[in-house]
């Protein structure tokens, strides 16, 4: 499976060793009757400075995959198999104190809801400075100066005053910027973002997306970004991996996957994008619901909802295979899809 990872990182023309590589990741949680698989054989590779969007609906396993990267799952009682390497080091083999060094230092994390991630009883500047002192061992004064610079990096106006503010005193947009500042405090080489703009207004969302793009460009940070919104993916992604029922069903260059989707699920998702007016057309619908992960159907998990299902889909679980350079699909009949039918018209 690492062959795939190699192809992707080489194809992007970046350094030979990927910033992040995941091979054969399986995650299961204990459910009512045994273990329920929530991530089933995920393989990924990401070169330094690149951004990868994990796209999928609730329950597709995208956030779990993200949390696996910083080794959070074992602490939650999940069963984790497979290999997760950050900068070449295996996260699953790390001791607890090594994990603490990894988190916040080499890998920064941005959550969807900054209010639950920031501590409400400490000033924001102090929280950022504490992270820096903890990881870098600098003096408090130096750490505060760095925090001040970080606020400039994330374009928070009146930085001095905002460093002294408590989280509840800031607007949603400023809080999310403060979180990004904290995630960037130790200059991580990898940034993980879990739906960081979903709770923001449209005009603020685009500001935060542009900010992340700018930070990436300036600092060469690699980023894995989780979202269910195709528009957000189009704004931020170099590469897109589409997840369904714990598996990556399609992966490739953002433009390729979003504009010329090959997997029937991705195709259906682009068809669900709301556009135009009700007077002209009804919206594309994806019939049915995602499968119960505790009782997955045999063969392809998407087959029960798939408009292009054939006999063999119920029998064979499709492996990922390339349909174009740097574009893989896990579908037995992907090549049969008519080209250029994206956009749901």
């Amino acid at each position, binding site marked *: 499976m690492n062959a795939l990872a190699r192809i992707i990182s080489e194809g992007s023309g970046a350094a030979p060793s990927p910033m992040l590589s995941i091979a054969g990741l399986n995650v299961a949680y204990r459910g009512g009757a045994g273990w329920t698989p929530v991530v089933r054989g995920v393989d990924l590779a990401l070169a330094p400075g690149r951004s990868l969007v994990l796209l999928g*609906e*609730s329950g597709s396993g995208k956030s779990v995959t993200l949390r696996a990267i910083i080794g959070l799952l074992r602490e939650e009682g999940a069963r984790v198999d497979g290999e997760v390497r950050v900068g070449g080091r295996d996260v699953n083999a790390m001791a607890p104190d090594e994990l603490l060094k990894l988190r916040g230092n080499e890998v920064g994390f941005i959550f969807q809801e900054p209010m639950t991630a920031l501590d409400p009883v400490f000033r924001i500047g102090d929280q950022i400075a504490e992270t820096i002192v903890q990881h870098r061992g600098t003096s408090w004064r130096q750490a505060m100066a760095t925090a001040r610079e970080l606020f400039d990096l994330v374009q928070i*106006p009146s930085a001095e005053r905002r460093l002294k503010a408590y989280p509840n005193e800031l*607007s*949603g*947009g*400023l809080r999310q910027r403060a979180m990004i500042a904290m995630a960037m405090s130790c200059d991580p080489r990898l940034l993980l973002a879990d739906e960081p703009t979903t709770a923001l*207004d*449209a*005009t*603020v*969302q*685009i*500001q935060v*997306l*542009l900010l992340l793009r700018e930070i990436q460009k300036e600092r060469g940070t690699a980023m894995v970004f989780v979202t*269910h*919104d*195709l*528009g*957000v993916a*189009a*704004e931020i*992604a170099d590469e897109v991996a589409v997840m369904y029922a714990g598996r990556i069903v399609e992966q490739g260059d*953002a*433009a390729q996957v*979003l*504009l010329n989707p090959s997997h029937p699920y991705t195709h*259906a*998702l682009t068809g*669900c*994008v*709301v*556009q*135009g*007016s*009700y007077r002209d057309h*009804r*919206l*594309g*619908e*994806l019939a049915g*619901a995602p499968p119960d992960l505790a009782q997955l159907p045999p063969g392809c998990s998407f087959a029960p909802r798939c408009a292009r299902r054939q006999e063999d889909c119920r029998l064979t679980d499709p492996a990922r295979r390339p349909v174009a350079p740097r574009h893989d699909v896990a579908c037995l009949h992907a090549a049969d899809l008519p080209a250029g039918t994206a956009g749901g018209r």
Partner: protein
Amino acid sequence: MSVTFSAMQAPLPPIEDRGGPSQPLLIARGLRKEFRLADGLFGGRTVVHAVDDLSLTVNKGETVGIVGESGCGKSTAARLIAGITPADDGEVVFDGESFWTPRTRIDAERRRAIQMVFQDSASSLNPRMTLTETLAFGPRAHGVPTAVARTYARDLLAAVGLPPSRFAERYPIQLSGGQRQRVNIARALAIRPRLLILDEPVSALDKSVEAQVLNLLVALREELSLSYVFISHDLNVVRYIADRVVVMYLGQVVEEATSAQIFAAPRHPYTRALFASKPSLDPRRRIEAPPLTGDPPDPVNPPSGCRFRTRCPIAEAVCAAAKPPLAAAAPEGEGHKVACWAAQPGSGHSLAPRPMGALQ
């Protein structure tokens, strides 16, 4: 869908049309609501002007979309219209008759005419009632016998795409978000309203489910001759479902036009920025500069004059001096209104069109 509403035996009579087709279904005039926050340390009062002089007309069979960012007052506006939150000032006329004024209450029979669907599908359902009980509750409150109401509840479930054989005895926690929102829609329709106010009904749903619910709403509007007030921060959703669009900023209406007009040619700088913030869906054509910087100002201390001026790229001295009225936008004429000095002839703004009949 096995059961349709028109084939269903509804236990409540329809609300008769009184005003005829040209009478707007709903006219809201001068709605105003202030919320008093906790008093300040030195006795100073903190007042949020949540909705400031909002007027709105909904024609029969029409969907009016209200767009704006969080805190702009769109949800408060919805609650004022429905009479859930008492307004400080203003009035609502429903099909030619007074629905409420600040001094009158809405009687139970008339309240039936306007129903609401809320964003949070879970917290708006009673967790201890089965779906049948939930859907039978409204009709029973309006005097329908329990047995009749329960049979009707099962038909309602079928009509919103939830087979009663599987769903009738379930509790809300046993449903997905999309299924719960279908129940909320069925509950609102159970007492046969004429106007549905939908407050961000699809915002919490996955994209594939969002499309299902929007299609359902379009079909129901046709079938039941409903009118909608549809509130959303998602422009694509509003563009899809609305015939007319109202844009709010900090408690005030800044632009109003038909869906076609406003999406083709937005006039207010805020509307333009809002539209330009919409992700492109094409990775090859990304947004390169943020259309607006900063966050909306604090509604406790809104800027003087035009409330958008602090973030507006074309603000001038006149914008700080006085609030621009919501008036017809010159070239489009009828139906397209905008509250911007740059669109008002003779306002003194350098971009304003010259007054009609001006000689020089």
